[in-house]
């Protein structure tokens, strides 16, 4: 025990202090640059102004028509709606495409046509079809999340050890048995990778969709800030997008660890 204590790895002092120093310098410099007028306050808001707005926005609906957490909640709902739909459709589709020739033959060409189109390019059509409410945005987010789900599940199945498949065949296993008993378990690590990647995709596309067509949400808040010439609202919106995204990332990470521990291999 004591022997171990001597080799406890200590974080070097430089790595403890320097981050604080650099962050502090960054914000102070930002504040000074705006306060002294080097950058006019029509272009950028000082951190203190943004903080003020942040506190104010919890109770004040003006001028964008909703409270801060309401915007965030709208965005989260849209993101998760699209995300879960993408998982529900993309994972089974990708798994099936990886093993069944019929599924690959039918779905692959269409998937390859749709894949290179950035989800944002669908926005105009989506507005024709759904207007600017929740369903349209969920559709865009779903499209964006679908791609990594399908690809990861597909590649995961393709990576199944061929000798295992031969082994199952000699025991007389049917295609369906092999798919269920070998391909899906083999693909699981890739599928879990897809959970993370798809969520990042969904969040990015969400903000893009809200910037262009929305009446609520964090992206909408950023757009309103621009229209109303309020840089502090733009910065606050950006900050909230980053913060919420990071928060969701942490949650998914937790869930993934829990699930992976459940199917120990």
């Amino acid at each position, binding site marked *: 025990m004591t022997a171990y204590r001597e080799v406890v790895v200590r974080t070097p002092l430089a790595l403890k202090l320097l981050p604080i120093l650099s962050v502090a310098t960054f914000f102070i410099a930002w504040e000074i640059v705006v306060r002294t007028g080097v950058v006019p306050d029509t272009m950028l808001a000082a951190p203190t102004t943004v903080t003020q707005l942040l506190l104010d926005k919890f109770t004040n609906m003006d001028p964008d028509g909703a409270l801060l957490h309401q915007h965030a909640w709208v965005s989260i709902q849209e993101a998760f709606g699209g995300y879960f739909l993408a998982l529900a459709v993309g994972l089974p589709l990708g798994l099936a495409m990886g093993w069944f020739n019929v599924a690959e033959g039918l779905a692959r060409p269409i998937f390859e046509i749709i894949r290179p189109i950035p989800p944002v390019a669908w926005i105009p059509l989506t507005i024709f079809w759904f207007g600017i409410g929740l369903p349209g945005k969920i559709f865009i987010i779903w499209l964006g999340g679908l791609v990594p789900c399908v690809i990861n599940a597909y590649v995961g199945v393709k990576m199944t050890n061929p000798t295992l498949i031969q082994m199952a*065949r000699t025991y*007389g296993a049917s295609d369906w048995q092999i798919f269920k*008993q070998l391909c899906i378990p083999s693909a*699981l690590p890739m599928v879990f990778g897809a959970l993370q990647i798809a969520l990042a995709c969904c969040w990015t596309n969400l903000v893009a969709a809200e910037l262009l067509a929305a009446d609520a949400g964090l992206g909408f808040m950023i757009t309103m800030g621009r229209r109303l010439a309020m840089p502090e609202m733009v910065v606050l919106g950006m900050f909230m997008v980053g913060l919420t995204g990071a928060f969701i990332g942490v949650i998914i990470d937790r869930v993934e660890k829990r699930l992976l521990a459940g199917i*120990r291999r």
Partner: protein
Amino acid sequence: MQDAARPRTKIEVCNLTKRFGELLVLDDISFSVAEGEFVAIVGPTGCGKTTFLNTLSCLLPASNGQILIDGTPANPKRHNISYVFQEPTCLPWRTVRENVAYGMEVKGRPQKDIDERLDHILNLVGLTQCANLYPNQISASMQQRIAVSRAFAVDPDLLLMDEPYGQLDVKLRFYLEDELVSLWRKLQSTVLFITHNIEEAVYVSERILVLSNKPTRIKAEVKVDLPRPRDFMDPEFVRIREHVTDLIRWW
């Protein structure tokens, strides 16, 4: 010891030929195996031993000829064929016990039968203690023993083994060969065992088929009629071993 009238023919291979494009690998091979017989196959590297087993197990279609099990064309869905591959084939997400059960599950045996059979087999091979471990928690040789147990568990009509112990050290190999022979005698399966190692072939089998170079034919057939347990030092053992070695060296 197996001198009593031979049981009926179990496997019959008729004019088996396999080509990969222009390359003729198996050239018109015919032989038969009696029920419960243990046959070893030796041959030079690259002569097509693995191809031979893959064709017998229907993983590869034969270019010509046929394989009959109990008089009907071999079919993995109808017959119980087991194949122990050169490399370990454990399913990493299943425990030892679940791995041994896999073949029986595929064949849809009732759970009660599976459990009884598992207890029996795991006991025979001494894997009961590690029944609930996962493959990444046990050694490579253990993994190969799991594959062998899984193969015996389905009561195979035909058990194919492709150099299952090629990677192991000598001492462990002797041990596992003994285990294999005792499993075979207790469970009375029909076994085709491929190996590079002539001593191993003489030690385990009742009959040795010596293959030629490509295009591969059966060059000779050697009966091994020695009592068990066999002794490597026994002059008769040594004579047979040298005889087979000569047959192979001829090339």
